[in-house]
């Protein structure tokens, strides 16, 4: 009874389906901050010691492991629900107009599905390159004095990948797509939940734009810096 109501609300009601997009989006927004702060350790000039120990912690702490599986589910939910909504919306619109409108709209809002698709494909590459290689134990193993266990050298995998300008370009462009997706997505999540008020709307919009720029630029500069360190 409760389950049926919840499933109906979250996957059938137009507003409920958007609530799923909003809440999963906000969870991913929070995750990106943690991920970026972790990744910035790649820039430490210590041969990767700090980053590798951090990666070991993140992949061995049971609480974080649990959250990471929740994260994978959230990404899938956000992507699949987004695709389902885009398909339903396209059907509801029917054909488009002969003349396209130049009315002012929320920037990039019409391209959320396209940007999302780019990000989903990017995630496939990203997970294959680093997550899967680590899971399969394909990364070299290093020991650091002061730690009692050897750790996988994820830093080496990352540094190696970004000697290739092709990957640097793909990562930087994908992060541009991420920034544009968040530019609309951040404030849109609040609007969908009904969290709006004339007093705070300006703040929400501003924080969203600053956040989007910070995350996109933050992630994009890492491969660029790593590339130029090696040339």
């Amino acid at each position: 009874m409760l389950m049926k109501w919840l499933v109906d609300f979250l996957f059938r009601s137009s507003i409920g389906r958007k609530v799923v997009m909003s809440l999963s989006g906000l969870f991913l927004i929070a995750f990106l901050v943690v991920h970026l702060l972790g990744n910035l350790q790649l820039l430490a000039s210590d041969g990767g010691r700090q980053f590798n120990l951090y990666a070991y912690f993140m992949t061995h702490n049971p609480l974080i492991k649990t959250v990471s599986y929740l994260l994978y589910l959230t990404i899938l939910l956000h992507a699949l629900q987004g695709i389902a909504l885009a398909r339903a919306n396209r059907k509801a619109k029917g054909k488009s107009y002969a003349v396209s409108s130049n009315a002012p709209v929320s920037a990039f809002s019409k391209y959320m599905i396209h940007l999302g698709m780019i990000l989903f494909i990017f995630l496939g590459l990203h997970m294959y390159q680093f997550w899967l290689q680590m899971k399969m134990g394909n990364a070299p193993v290093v020991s650091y004095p002061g730690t009692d266990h050897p750790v996988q050298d994820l830093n080496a995998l990352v540094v190696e990948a970004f000697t290739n300008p092709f990957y640097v370009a793909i990562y930087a462009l994908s992060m541009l797509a991420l920034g544009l997706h968040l530019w609309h997505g951040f404030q849109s999540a609040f609007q969908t939940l009904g969290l709006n008020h004339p007093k705070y709307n300006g703040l929400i919009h501003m924080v969203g734009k600053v956040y989007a720029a910070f995350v996109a630029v933050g992630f994009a500069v890492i491969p660029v810096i790593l590339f130029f360190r090696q040339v």
Partner: protein
Amino acid sequence: MELQLKIWRQKNADSGGGFEVYRVKANEHMSFLEMLDVLNEQLIAERKEPVAFDHDCREGICGACSMVINGRPHGPNQGTTTCQLHMRFFKDGDVITVEPFQARAFPVIKDLVVDRSAFDRIIQAGGYISVNTGQPVDGNAIPIERDTSSLAFDAAACIGCGACVAACPNGSAMLFVAAKVSHLGLLPQGKIEQDGRVQKMVAQMDEEGFGNCSNVAACEAECPKQISVSNIARLNRALITVSFQSS
């Protein structure tokens, strides 16, 4: 002024349609609809089928006129219905493309006329207040805070024309439903039935095949009554709250 009109012609709901090009001489004081009247007189004189379009009050308050002019519902001007759009906003020699509102829930009946009865069914689902007939109660007998009444009146300006649906890339009716829910639910007389109203109107909206809001805000830009998307946030909030509370 002489204009070239590219108008969508469609015989009925089942037939396919296409654009036809017409030349019409108008003057700048005419409204867009009066310019179409001139065209239709011309077509009738030539023993051709006149262009069908919806219109009624021609004062910008009934919500009957529709059509998409150069890609924009009700034309290029903000806060203006098609009937209040005057030809002085166009230039001599302009090519103007005129299409019907586009959404699956608004099927074309003929030419520029679409079936907007989905809106009527949404209203029938809950867009009203139940009152006993008889002597009307004095409106000023119930005190209402100034800010609240302003919000309700702003939402009540909705004329139900459907430009929001026509403008939305998702064919969503959220701005219309949000305006009705805000207008009724903010006032004491409408508050009593608000929870059920929100659920029933949203359910009917979904059933009619309208799309899902993705906060593009094209509706707000095109609304001839400039209804704010903040009403959509209010509707979201109301539906989420009532969904989790109701039995």
